[in-house]
């Protein structure tokens, strides 16, 4: 059986809609808060993304603030991360400290990673998903 994991942030429309999609389309998922992301987990996800860890991060402070209207400290890192002055390890370190920088939802089976919500991507990713084990010995 495939195990799907979703990292979300409550109150983020894209997270809430992706969660609803999985539930209403009958795909079981383990749901965690984005704030439970550890440094190791971030490194594991970053390895699966073509652009590495920065693919996990909001592209600018405006979009970051739409979802995190109350967070200020994190903002300065967004610019730094996308300027390309930091090493992959440094980025992963920052994300480990400030998981709010990570776009949600993150949906993964540790073979592929979806960042954010997109209907077409959901539909094409969830084909032939085994959701219930009925063939036990």
């Amino acid at each position, binding site marked *: 059986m495939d195990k799907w994991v979703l990292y979300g942030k409550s109150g983020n429309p894209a997270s809430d*809609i992706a969660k*609803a*999609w999985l539930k*209403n*389309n009958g795909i079981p998922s383990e749901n965690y808060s984005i704030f439970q992301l550890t440094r190791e987990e971030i490194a594991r996800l970053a390895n699966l993304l073509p652009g590495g860890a920065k693919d996990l991060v909001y592209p600018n402070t405006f979009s970051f603030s739409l979802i995190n209207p109350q967070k200020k400290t994190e903002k300065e890192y967004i610019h730094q991360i996308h300027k390309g002055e930091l090493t992959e390890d440094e980025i992963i370190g920052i994300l480990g400290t400030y998981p709010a920088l990570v776009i949600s939802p993150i949906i993964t089976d540790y073979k592929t990673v979806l960042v954010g919500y997109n*209907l077409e991507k959901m539909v094409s990713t969830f084909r032939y998903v085994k959701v219930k084990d009925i063939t036990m010995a």
Partner: protein
Amino acid sequence: MSRFDVFREAGNPMFNDNKLKLGIFGPNVSNSCSMTLANTTFKPDFETNVKIAKMMEDAGYECIVPVARWRGFGGSSNFNGNCMETYTWAAAMAAVTKKIYLFCTSHVPTMHPIVASKMLSTIDEISKGRIGLNTVTGWFPKEMDMFAGKKMEHDKGYEYATEWMEVVLKMWSEQFFDYKGDFFEIKDGWQEPKPTQSPRPVLISAGTSKKGREFSARFTDFNFGYIESMEHGKEWTNYMKKLAWDEFRREINTFTTGFVVCRPTEKEAKEFYDYYVREQGDWEVANIICDMFGIESSSNSIDFLTKARENFIGGWGGWAFVGTPEQVADEMIKISKTGISGTLVSFLDYVEEMPYFNENVLPLLEQAGVRKPIKQEESPEEQENTNTELYSPVQV
């Protein structure tokens, strides 16, 4: 005596004295008729359905029409994805209700007519004559694709449905018959039980195409449809009555559907509409459905596109009854004046919203003379006895 007289004489609720009959649409499917992610306590489970049916019986509604869905439409709500199959649903509902008329909604390509007719006869026995049949040909391709590509080309679908219905009617009315068509061959057909109700279960269908309307006029008692304006409702009803009489020498009625957002003030009603349709609506599923119906974004104005999608999100494209009890009642009275026999309604949250509608809109419909106040027939004591008899496991 006409067919409608026979139904009336048999005490069929679909032919009672109420000029505006009321039912609900789709309590057996997730989201019922609203394509939204808004908060609701509604669940398409049996317990909720029984609760709703009891409220309806207490308020004197005529019928419940379930939706038949084999898969959802996609989107994050996966609108209508979770669906209680309608024959088994109706059989169970029949056992725990007493007055309300129930329908099965059947995709004809998914079930053999002998099985369907026998299941209906069985539910007729369980319900003591309160089951009807809503036939659908199957228009949602992804759903019909699951049945080995049984989604037929439109006109062929109706030819198939015609034979299917002919077989059902024979199973209900003949013994030891032969039938040979392009799709079905029945040798020495025979069935017991036959339906107990007189003359037979009420037949309805919702075709709007030429073939669909012909099918309805030829076989059914009610053609179901959406109306775009009161004028359109009148034209459609006249058209159907004329078609059925001219072509098949039979009577037919029409029935429409709508969704209700009824609140003490117009402001509250509109605010709630904003919340569940505009803010929390599943716009992707509305797009999927609009695409299926060929509502193109390139050839229509923004205003038209938004309105079309909002109507789907609000309640499957039905008439919007949004406002105060007076405003909602007023719209319903207008519908009744077009000659349409009644309307199905849907609510985002039946259990939460229906009591307010029943307490505040139904009396206005009674005052206007389009519905009669419900008769208080039985004392609570008697009701309790009947219930015990119905549910007691000792008796089974």
